[in-house]
C-alpha cells in the first residue's frame, strides 16, 4: 500500500467518544487517523431500512451487519457473537458502524452524582474515582454544549453544575405530566437530561415527538456519533471505515508504535502514530488489548496485571407494568422523557443498590398487538383491547447499580469470527447488592401504581433483569495499577503513549446512562494530552515521549 498510514494520533473506534476526541485533537492542529471496523451509514438509509423492515419491533434490524465487523444480534435468533460464560446472561447490544451505537439511543445524557465517584470512602463498597466531580465539571459542560443537552438545573440538584444547561427542557408529554401531577409530592417526577433538541440547535430541528428515538430519530433531533464523525472529518480527521484493528504493536520501551487492521478481504495494514487512543466500546476495546499479545505482554497490551476486561458493569432493570385509571396514551413525544431521581443516593448504598426509576413513553400499540395476536384475540374484541391497553398501559423500571467486581469480565472465547479473530466471551453475575435494590424498589412500584389508580399489576419475575447496554468498567481508571487499567487521565499504566476513551474507563456505574460521563472523561483525557504536549515541537514528541509530563 503506497499511501502513508501515519499520524500524530491514531484513534481506534469512531463512536461518539472516539470521534469527539479525534475532533478535539484535530482542532488543536494534530494529524489524526480514526479507524472504524464497521461501514459508513447514513441516517436516511437507516430510516428507510426501519420503515421497510418487516420486523419493526426489532430495533436492531435497520442496522447493517458486517461479517468482517460482527456485533451481537439476538433477533430473530442469537448469532452467538458474544459468548456467554455465565452465571447470569449478559446480552449486551452495540453497533459496529461509523458513528457507533449512539445512532440508536434514547439520548439520556446524565451527569453522575458526586457521591457515585466516592463509593468506597462513603459507603465502603465499590471504588473511589481517581478524579473528582468538580474536576470533571468543565468537561461535562463542554460535552453538554457540543451535544446540545436539554434539561432543567432546578429539577436536577443532585448533579450540581456551575453553568446552565445549553438547552431548555424538551416539552413534557401528556402521560409524563399526569405522572408528575399524580405522584407529587411523594415522588418528584422530573424531565430527563437529554441530548435532544428542545429548539433548533446545531442546524438540526427540535424534537417533534415522532416517538422513534430508537431505532433512529427521523428528523435528527438527537445528537449521535454520526454527527461527531461529521465534525471530526470537517476538522481534518482522516476516517478509515471497514478497518478492523486486530493488534497493537509495541517497541522495546513498551510504547505503542502501530495498530494493525484487516480490511473486509483480510488484507492487513499497519498504521503508525505517536499517540494511540483506543475508543472501541466497553467490550471491543478490551478484546483488542487481549488479542495484542507479545513476549513481553503475554496476556495482552496494558494487561501486565490481568486487569483488562474485568469490573464489567451495566444497569440491570426490573419493571412494573400496569393499567392506569385514566387514558394517558403513551407514544406521544420522546420514548424516555421522565424519571424519579430521589432513590439514587443515601446511606442505604452501604447495603444495597441505589436506582433511578424510569418511566417509558414508548407507544403500546406494537407490543399490545403482538401480545393479543399471540393470545389469539381478533375482531372487535381485538380492537377494544388494543385501544384499552394503548391508552392506559404504563411502565416504570429500575435502573440498578452494579458494583465493580473483578470476576465480572470480558475474555476471549475459543470461537472465531469471519476474519479469524477470537470472539469476546462474558462472565457476568448479578449479586445480592443489586438484587437488594430490586427488592427495595418493589414497594415504590406498588405505590406508584396505586397513585395512578393502577390495576392489572405485572411485576417482572425476581430473577429477570433486563439489560441497558451501558457497558462500563472494563478499562477502569484508578491510581492503583493492581486494580485498574489506566491512570486518572486514561493513560494505560503499562504504556505511556496509549490512552483509553469510552465507557470502559468509568470505575463505577452509578445509576445513570454512561455516555455523557464517557465523553466528558474523554475530553478531560484530551485536555491532559494537549497540555502535556504543548510546547513540545511536533518532531520531538516521538523522541521525548508524549508522556514526559507525568
Amino acid at each position, binding site marked *: 500500500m503506497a499511501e502513508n498510514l501515519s499520524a500524530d494520533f491514531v484513534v481506534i473506534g469512531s463512536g461518539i467518544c472516539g470521534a469527539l476526541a479525534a475532533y478535539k485533537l484535530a482542532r488543536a492542529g494534530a494529524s489524526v487517523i480514526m479507524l472504524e471496523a464497521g461501514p459508513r451509514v*447514513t441516517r*436516511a*438509509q437507516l*430510516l*428507510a431500512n426501519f*420503515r*421497510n423492515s*418487516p420486523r419493526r419491533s426489532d430495533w436492531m434490524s435497520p442496522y447493517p451487519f458486517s461479517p468482517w465487523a460482527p456485533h451481537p444480534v439476538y433477533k430473530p435468533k442469537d448469532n452467538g457473537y458474544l459468548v456467554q460464560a455465565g452465571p447470569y446472561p449478559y446480552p449486551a447490544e452495540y453497533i459496529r458502524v461509523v458513528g457507533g451505537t449512539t445512532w440508536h439511543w434514547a439520548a439520556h445524557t446524565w451527569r453522575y452524582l458526586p457521591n457515585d465517584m466516592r463509593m468506597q470512602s462513603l459507603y465502603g463498597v465499590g471504588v473511589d474515582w481517581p478524579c473528582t466531580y468538580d474536576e470533571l465539571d468543565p468537561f461535562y459542560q463542554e460535552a453538554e454544549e457540543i451535544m446540545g443537552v436539554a434539561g432543567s438545573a432546578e429539577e436536577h440538584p443532585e448533579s450540581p453544575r456551575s453553568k446552565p444547561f445549553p438547552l431548555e427542557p424538551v416539552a413534557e408529554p401528556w402521560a409524563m405530566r399526569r405522572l408528575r401531577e399524580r405522584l407529587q409530592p411523594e415522588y418528584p417526577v422530573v424531565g430527563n437530561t437529554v441530548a435532544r433538541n428542545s*429548539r*433548533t440547535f446545531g*442546524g*438540526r*430541528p*427540535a424534537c*417533534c415527538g*415522532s416517538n422513534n428515538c430508537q431505532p433512529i430519530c*427521523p*428528523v*435528527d433531533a438527537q445528537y449521535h456519533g454520526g454527527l461527531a464523525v461529521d465534525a471530526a472529518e470537517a476538522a481534518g480527521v482522516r476516517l478509515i471505515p471497514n478497518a478492523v484493528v486486530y493488534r497493537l504493536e509495541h517497541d522495546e520501551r513498551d510504547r505503542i508504535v502501530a495498530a494493525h487492521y484487516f480490511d473486509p478481504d483480510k488484507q492487513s495494514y499497519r498504521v503508525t502514530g505517536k499517540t494511540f487512543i483506543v475508543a472501541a466500546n466497553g467490550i471491543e476495546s478490551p478484546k483488542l488489548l487481549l488479542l495484542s499479545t507479545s513476549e513481553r505482554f503475554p496476556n495482552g497490551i496494558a494487561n501486565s496485571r490481568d486487569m483488562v476486561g474485568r469490573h464489567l458493569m451495566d444497569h440491570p432493570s426490573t419493571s412494573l407494568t400496569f393499567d392506569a385509571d385514566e387514558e394517558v396514551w403513551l407514544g406521544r413525544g420522546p420514548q424516555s422523557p421522565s424519571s424519579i431521581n430521589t432513590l439514587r443516593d443515601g446511606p442505604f448504598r452501604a447495603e444495597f443498590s441505589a436506582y433511578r426509576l424510569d418511566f417509558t413513553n414508548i407507544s403500546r400499540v406494537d407490543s399490545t398487538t403482538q401480545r393479543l395476536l399471540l393470545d389469539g384475540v381478533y375482531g372487535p374484541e381485538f380492537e377494544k383491547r388494543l385501544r384499552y391497553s394503548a391508552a392506559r398501559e404504563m411502565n416504570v423500571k429500575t435502573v440498578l447499580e452494579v458494583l465493580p467486581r473483578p470476576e465480572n469480565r470480558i475474555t476471549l472465547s475459543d470461537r472465531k469470527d469471519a476474519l479469524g479473530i477470537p470472539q469476546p466471551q462474558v462472565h457476568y453475575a448479578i449479586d445480592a447488592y443489586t438484587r437488594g435494590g430490586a427488592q427495595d424498589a418493589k414497594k415504590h412500584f406498588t405505590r406508584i401504581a396505586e397513585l395512578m389508580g393502577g390495576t392489572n399489576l405485572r411485576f417482572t419475575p425476581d430473577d429477570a433483569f433486563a439489560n441497558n447496554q451501558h457497558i462500563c468498567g472494563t478499562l477502569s481508571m484508578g491510581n492503583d495499577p493492581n486494580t485498574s487499567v489506566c491512570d486518572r487521565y486514561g493513560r494505560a499504566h503499562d504504556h505511556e503513549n496509549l490512552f483509553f476513551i469510552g465507557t470502559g474507563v468509568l470505575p463505577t456505574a452509578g445509576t445513570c446512562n454512561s455516555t455523557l460521563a464517557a465523553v466528558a472523561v474523554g475530553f478531560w483525557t484530551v485536555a491532559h494530552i494537549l497540555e502535556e504536549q504543548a510546547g513540545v515541537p511536533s518532531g520531538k514528541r516521538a523522541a521525548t515521549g508524549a508522556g514526559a509530563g507525568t
Partner: protein
Amino acid sequence: MGWIQAVKRFVGGLMVLGLAWGGAGVVGAAPADPELIQRGEYLARVGDCVACHTAPGGPVFAGGLELPTPVGNIVATNITPSKTAGIGNYTLEQFDAAVRRGIRADGKPLYPAMPYPSYAKVTDEDIEAMYAYFMNAVEPVETRPPQTKLPFPFNIRYSMKLWNALFLDETPFQPDPSQGEEWNRGAYLVQGLTHCSTCHSPRNFLMAEDSSRDLAGGEVGPWHAPNITSDPVSGVGSWSLEEIVAYMKQGSIPKSQAAGPMAEAIDHSFQYMTDADLRAMAVYLKSVPPIAEDGVKKPVDSWGRAHADFASVRGKPWPENPDELNGPQLFDAYCAACHQASGQGTFDRQMPALYQNTATGRLQTNNLVMVILEGIHRVSQGYEVRMPGFAHELSDQQIATLSNYLMQAYGNPDGQTSAEQVANLRQGGPVSSSNLILLARAGMVVGLLVVLALVVWLVRRRRS
C-alpha cells in the same frame, strides 16, 4: 435586535450628560425630538437598511456585507454616525442625496445595489425622520468595511451617472387623488421604502428594473422572486388581503412559506410593520396591473393533493448507487418524517402541506431546489421556523429526482428540475453574467473605434 437598546442607551446617555436634544454634536442636524427618531427607526426598518448594511454577526449598520451582483461583489458601507468610518459628517442634504439619488457626500455616485431608484419615492418628511434616527440613535461603529472593487468599466463610478440619466426617476411619490388614503399609503410603501420591485421586477440587460413588467417576478441570485402583480393565476390576485398581510407578518400561511431573501425581509423588516401599513401594501398590490406568465395554467397554490407512493418502494432494497434512488424512496427518507406520509403536513400547520402550496406550484423550480439545498431558518416574533437543508447530504441528481417527484406527486408536473440546474444553484445561482461586463467593455471598444475613425477621417480630410 439593537435598535431599541440603542435608542435607550442614547437617551440614557443624554440624560446623564444633561444635554438638550438639539445641538447634540451633529453639525447641521435639526433638533431631533424623540418622536421623530422613533418614526425614523420605524422607517429604517420598513426600508430594511439592516439587511444589507450589517454583516452576519457584525455590529448593526456597520456594513461589510458583500452583495453579489452579476458584475462582482458590492460591499455595503458603514452607515452608523461614526465621523471617520460612517456617515457621521453627513448633513441632511447629503443623507438625502445618498438615499434618494444615489450620490455620496463626495459627489460620486453609488451603485444601484443601493435601492435608491425606489427610495427616490420617499417623502422629505420621512427622509428627515430617518436622518434623525441614524444620527442620534444609532451606535457609531468605528470600523470601515473594505471598499468595493468592481472590474472595468464598472470601477468607474461615473458610469453610473449615465445609468441614472437613463433609469432614475427622481420625483418623490405623488398621491393619486382618484384612489383612497389606504391605497396611496400602500403605493407609497411598495414603490418606495419597502422596495419590492428591487427583487420582484424583472431587469433589463443593463440591470435596470423593467417598468413595463412591474412586479412580474425577478431573479435574486439563485432565488426567484415571484410575480406579485394582481394577476389571479400568475400573481397574488387570488390571495385575500388577510392572506397577504399574514404572509408578510409571519412568513407562513398554509399555501405559502417565505424562504431565502423573502424570509430575511420578513425577519428584518415586515414583521415589525404595523398591521395598517401591511394592509395598505396588500390593498395596493392587489391593484397592480396584472401580468400573466406564459404557460401558467392555474394558480400556483392550486396544484396537487394528498398522496402517497410508499407501496411501490416498501420491501425493496435501496439501489447500490445512491443517485438511482427514486422519488418515493427519497421522499420517504428525507421528507416524510416532517411533511408526513401523504405530504399533508402536521395538524398544527407547523410543517406545511406540500400540495396546494406555492412551493410546488411554479414552473420555475429554483426556489424548491434552494429550499431543499439550504432549508429555511427564520426567527419571527416569538417563534422559530427551521427546515434543515440537505446540501451536505443529497447529490445534484438526488435533488433533481426529489424535486421532480415532488412536483409530480404534489404540484405542477410541468415544473422540471435538472441535475445541472441543481449544480448551478448549489454554486450560488446562474453563472454570473459576465456577459454584462463583456457587453460594456465591447461597447466602450466600439465607441473608441468610432472616435478613432472620426479622427483619422478628419486628419485625412485636412491633408487633402
